């Protein structure tokens, strides 16, 4: 039981901290979520993480749903709720004030510098997320091909990404990727 409470507390702390750092959106903090839940806390394997991320992407809703699923995997439904609340509440409250301030100082040079300065760092983090997920998901060249194809389709066309997910899942059903 005490282990369970420790897990819930770890979820609250981890996602609470992350929510304050996630100004690039949840996609920028995937590597940290992965590091904490796979390497630090051993809540799941690399493959589990890739699977949960895929499920979160397939579900309708915001990007931070991966935190809900990580919480669920670590500590069941209470874990899911705590992780979600921790990921949302601090940044929701902060955003409420920050958006007001951000708008008020629209013309201020500091605001421009902060926005412009953070942007490339965020992009580097999203590339990190992509890299972490590719390494977790692509255990064969066929899977790497699927990743490349879906990236190309989403980058070059306006097709709804859900079609890529559906097509890849359907391909998987045929068994050509094997099973993990």
């Amino acid at each position: 039981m005490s282990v369970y409470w420790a897990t819930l507390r770890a979820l609250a702390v981890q996602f609470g901290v992350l929510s304050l750092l996630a100004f690039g959106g949840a996609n920028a903090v995937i590597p940290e979520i992965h590091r904490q839940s796979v390497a630090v806390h051993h809540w799941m394997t690399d493959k589990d993480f890739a699977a949960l991320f895929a499920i979160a992407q397939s579900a309708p809703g915001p990007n931070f749903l991966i935190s809900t699923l990580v919480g669920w995997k670590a500590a069941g439904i209470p874990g899911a709720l705590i992780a979600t609340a921790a990921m949302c509440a601090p940044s929701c409250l902060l955003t409420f004030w920050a958006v007001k301030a951000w708008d008020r100082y629209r013309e201020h040079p500091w605001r421009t510098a902060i926005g412009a300065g953070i942007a490339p760092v965020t992009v580097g983090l999203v590339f990190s997320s992509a890299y972490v997920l590719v390494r977790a998901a692509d255990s064969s060249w066929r899977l790497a091909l699927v990743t490349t194809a879906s990236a190309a389709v989403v980058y070059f066309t306006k097709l709804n990404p859900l079609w890529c997910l559906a097509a890849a899942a359907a391909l998987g059903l045929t068994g050509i990727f094997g099973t993990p």
Partner: protein
Amino acid sequence: MAAIAGLVGAPVVIVITLGVLYGRFGGLELVQRAIIGLAAAAAGLVVATAARMAEPLLKRRALTAAPFILVAFVAVGVFRLPLPYVLLVLAPLSIAIMWKRAS
């Protein structure tokens, strides 16, 4: 607040349901087959997102953007350094450079 709860609530319920279903049926071979395909495609979506975000920055200001994109990627993606420390170093540096350029 109620609006936020409404916006967040439904997707959270849906995704927890999916998680529970995955927990129950994830062991079935058919589900596993579909999920590994799904995971590969989902990783591709993030690759595309990153590329889309990088494009305008690299077109407009490659010199000030590319080094930070690269260092953030190597530090967090390749070396798996803890995110807070990386941010603490890179963000102020990048902001200072943009500030200097503006003034």
